[in-house]
């Protein structure tokens, strides 16, 4: 559902002109501008539409065992608080993902000394021993019911910036320049980062692919 475009700020910095037509066609941008104009229901629409993407992004960046709901909630609350100063400079997802990525980064830094993909704890609080995530019996794990776990484990093996770039490109469909805006790097650096990420993932996942094909 496309909301009305409110009388919000539509200018891009330094351009002296309005935003690109493609920006205004973005559903999220329309809702955000309507929210800026006073339509609180538009904010509800934003949360309904993008909550899944925010959760998925946080889960893939932070791993399967870290709580992410508080970060997802904070991401949308920051969208709420930015109502007055929001400017339609690109897709709404780029705006939301930048907020979400910064929150994830803060969580990573807070847990710098702990493994990001920490093992779950038993009932008495003892952390279970980590298995060798790459070579542990791929032929036993490579069926479709386990692929989600396998993929998340492989993503967890990547350096943080490669993981984020890969998640944003593959799962969220962002362009190189949008990923670069979020990570604070050039499109060329983003391209290089993605190349290394895909090379590493192929190395990590190929044993499981071969086991499945056997």
């Amino acid at each position, binding site marked *: 559902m496309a909301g009305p475009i409110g009388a919000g700020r539509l200018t891009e910095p330094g351009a002296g002109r309005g935003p690109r037509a493609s920006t205004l066609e973005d559903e999220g941008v329309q809702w955000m501008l309507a929210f800026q104009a006073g339509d609180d229901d538009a904010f*509800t629409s934003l949360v309904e539409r993008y909550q899944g993407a925010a959760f998925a992004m946080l889960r893939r960046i932070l791993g399967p065992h870290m709580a992410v709901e508080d970060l997802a909630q904070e991401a949308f609350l920051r969208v*709420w608080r930015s109502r007055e100063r929001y400017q339609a400079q690109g897709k709404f997802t780029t705006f939301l993902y930048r907020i979400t990525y910064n929150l994830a980064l803060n969580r990573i830094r807070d847990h710098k000394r702990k493994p990001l993909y920490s093992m779950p704890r038993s009932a008495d609080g003892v952390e279970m021993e980590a298995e060798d995530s790459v070579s542990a019996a791929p032929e036993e794990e490579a069926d479709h019911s386990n692929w989600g776990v396998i993929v998340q484990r492989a993503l967890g093996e990547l350096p943080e910036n490669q993981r984020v770039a890969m998640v944003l490109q*593959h799962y969220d469909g962002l362009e190189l320049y949008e990923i670069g805006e979020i990570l604070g790097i050039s499109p060329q650096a983003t391209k290089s980062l993605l190349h290394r990420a*895909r090379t590493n993932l192929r190395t990590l996942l190929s044993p499981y692919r071969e086991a499945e094909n056997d």
Partner: protein
Amino acid sequence: MTDWLDEILDRDTPESVPEGFLERVIAQAQVEEVPAQHQAGGRLISFPQLMSMTAAAVMLLAVGFWLGQGGDTLHAPAVLGNGPENAMLDLDELYQNREVLEAYEVLADDDLNSAFYDAETGTWALDYSIEDQPR
């Protein structure tokens, strides 16, 4: 043509959103909209404001302590009398004089009083002797 990697990455199913997440976000956003002073138990002063006021109070105390410990004197012109020339005195000198006077009071004892009276007596005797001189 899709890379086999993309096909495998797609096998990771999306994270399910916990039930009630939207309602919790909306509720928290609406709580933030209420002015803090109208909230039950809410603070009238935000933490950053409190820190700023505390820092300012500490600075004032530090300056006051420094002055009390003999920091730079306060200089202010004091105009005395109605004469053609205005006498400008340091407040500092006035305070010092006052301290001396108070010190006399503090140190006043019988010996000092005796010396004072002797001085008065001597003066009186001198005046008397002058008055007895034949004119």
